């Protein structure tokens, strides 16, 4: 390779390096409040990522139409991380150091929230996030992090276990099989439930964790139902929840109790994927329902339908979680009277804060101290059934036969 081409290469490398190393002009500190957010608008998480964006956008529009925050308009700077941790780290760094945003909100998924929150923490930014509730996130011991949901993901099944205890002894399940997806949320949920259930005397007759790409759960369900368990607990996301149901139907097995941590809590997707006749009696957990009597929920639902149409049961939880993040920020800023990350962090670690996701409070690691809702399919509809104060229907068991 000739000297000339080597020189050309060096010139290009030098030019690019120079532009990379150069800083950017500082932006004005007065004017609109800039909030930096990285979202998965493409890649694996793009569907929930877009739902989160809808929530954030809706909140910002509403706030700006009603006087802004502290008299200033809110400006969201949303960038795409393509569902990649590399990109999410770059994005928050750029948002903070180059775009000099005043505040940051969280991205989608615990996988991305972890690295993102670490970056924000380094620069002293508060990190209110809608969708990073896996145990690994709280294990980071970040003081600036706040998961804006009533409970950490791993406690999703707690309300179900509590409900089971309210049943007369004869009706409670004696044996259980556990089939979970290997991902940062699903199997921890099932494991946490199993620990509690084993303590109260429910025998574990089968447990397994299957890899993420398993599309065919027939052999696993086959093994799970072989010991004829009273109850099947699925630590699932959506696709595998549907697969488990289909496998159970094909094998013609109807357990007395059936619980899925995810998938079965989707009001429109679940019946369309497994058949509307097959849903009744299945339990799941949820952080939010459109009819929950939480602070500002009616307003959120009506604003959402105004802007995006549809009916309230089509509202994705991710959008409500995003709105709650904005709502929480507004409350915090009102309390401390300034856009000051340090003060916001200190304020949020004290007391309870009312949002559409419930009345929230956190421990030192950002893990919320409440409980999720238990939901069940009753008469073809997904309704909250426990605890009583949020219930819209009475929970019923055992599970009716498939197709009833």
């Amino acid at each position, binding site marked *: 390779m000739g000297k000339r081409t080597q020189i050309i290469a060096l010139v290009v490398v030098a030019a690019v390096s120079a532009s*990379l190393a150069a800083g950017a002009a500082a932006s004005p500190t007065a004017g609109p409040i800039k909030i930096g957010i990285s979202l998965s608008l493409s*890649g694996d998480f793009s569907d929930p990522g877009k739902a989160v964006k809808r929530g954030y956008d809706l909140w910002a529009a509403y706030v700006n139409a009603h006087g802004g925050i502290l008299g200033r308009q809110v400006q969201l700077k949303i960038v795409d991380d393509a569902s990649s941790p590399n990109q999410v780290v770059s994005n928050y760094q*750029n948002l903070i150091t180059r775009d000099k945003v005043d505040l940051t909100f969280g991205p989608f998924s615990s996988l991305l929230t972890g690295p993102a929150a670490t970056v924000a923490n380094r620069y002293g930014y508060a990190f209110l996030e809608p969708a990073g509730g896996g145990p690994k996130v709280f294990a980071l011991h970040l003081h600036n992090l706040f998961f804006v949901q009533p409970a950490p993901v791993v406690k999703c099944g707690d309300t179900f276990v509590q409900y089971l205890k309210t049943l007369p002894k004869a009706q409670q399940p004696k044996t259980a099989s556990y089939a979970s997806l290997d991902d940062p949320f699903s199997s921890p949920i099932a494991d946490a439930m199993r620990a509690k259930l084993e303590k109260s005397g429910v025998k574990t007759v089968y447990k397994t964790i299957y890899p993420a790409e398993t599309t065919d759960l027939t052999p696993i369900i086959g093994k799970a139902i072989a010991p004829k368990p009273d109850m099947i607990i699925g630590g699932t996301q959506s696709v595998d929840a549907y697969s488990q149901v289909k496998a159970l139907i094909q094998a013609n097995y109807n357990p007395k109790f059936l619980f899925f941590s995810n998938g079965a809590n989707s009001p429109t997707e679940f019946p369309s994927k497994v058949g509307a006749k097959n849903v009744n009696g299945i339990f799941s957990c949820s952080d939010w329902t459109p009819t929950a009597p939480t602070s500002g929920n009616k307003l959120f639902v009506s604003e959402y339908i105004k802007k995006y149409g549809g009916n309230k049961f089509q509202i994705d939880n991710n959008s409500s979680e995003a709105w709650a993040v904005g709502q929480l920020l507004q409350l915090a800023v009102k309390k401390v009277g300034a856009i000051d990350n340090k003060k916001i962090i200190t304020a949020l670690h004290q007391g309870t804060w009312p949002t559409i996701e419930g009345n929230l409070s956190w421990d030192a690691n950002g893990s919320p101290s409440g409980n999720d809702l238990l939901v069940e399919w009753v008469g073809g509809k997904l309704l909250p059934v426990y605890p009583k104060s949020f219930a819209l229907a009475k929970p019923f068991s055992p599970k009716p036969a498939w197709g009833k």
Partner: protein
Amino acid sequence: MQNLFIFTLMFAALGSAWNIIGGYSGYISLGHAAFFGVGAYAIGITFTHVSIGSGYRPFYVLPLVGIGVALVAVPIGWVAFRTRAATFAIVTITLLFVVQQLAYNLRSITGGSQGISLPPPSFPVATFEEPFFYAMLGVLALSMLASWWIRGSKLGLALLSIRDDEDRARGLGVQTGFAKMVAFALSSGLVAMAGGVWGYYIGFIYPQFAVDPLVTIGMVLMVYLGGKGTLWGPVLGAFILVPAQQYLAYRLGASNLYLVGYAAVFLVVMLLLPRGILPSIAERARRLRTRRLPPDPGRGPQAKEVVAS
């Protein structure tokens, strides 16, 4: 902006390392991201049991990771090199998926899909990126040094002869097996070191991101773009593509166009510029030079006109 710089250097290092086996010998390894992942996990697993000390310990461990992975690459290479060309490429693709699957399944070691998270080092905020930057620069320098040294050595000649015609090389007595193995091991070790720095920098090592086919594609694309088999080609390719990709994602995101974009760039390079930028420039330069050569002395006055045009 140093953050972007780190990723650019990383891909430049990866490309240079890949070039040692893919560019010089012609054996297209499409599974190199597997070694990247192994390097990342090696650092991750080590430092869940050992403390990171002042934060510099992982950097000291890095060379050990490189050597360790290079040694592991030997038996892998032995099996893989029992095939040629297309089959070799397929086997390396399979290697990638095997390693990814192992990362998912060996839950007690790798944490499965929950991944491994490393504590962030307590480097001062203003200069947080710098140690990582220098570490990645170091890996790049090592890669290029190895690449440069091989070019001038007998090993390099052996690899080139393999690329031209392996059977003839073997017939002539060239130690093809040994050459391929050394190149493969060296290449893998370097890639693993880059992976180790990456794992430490991001702090979260998940199977689908640490062992990602898109990393292989990125590596290979940058090498082809810049010039396969050249010294600076992979670096040039990285310096063009990584900022471009991050810029597009940051400014224009919100659609899955980046995959289509990657595909388009790849296809354009393969079909229109298959030898890459640097060799094409070199070729163009050479043609210009030869056109300006003094005419044959036996031609007389006509020659002067040719030169003038």
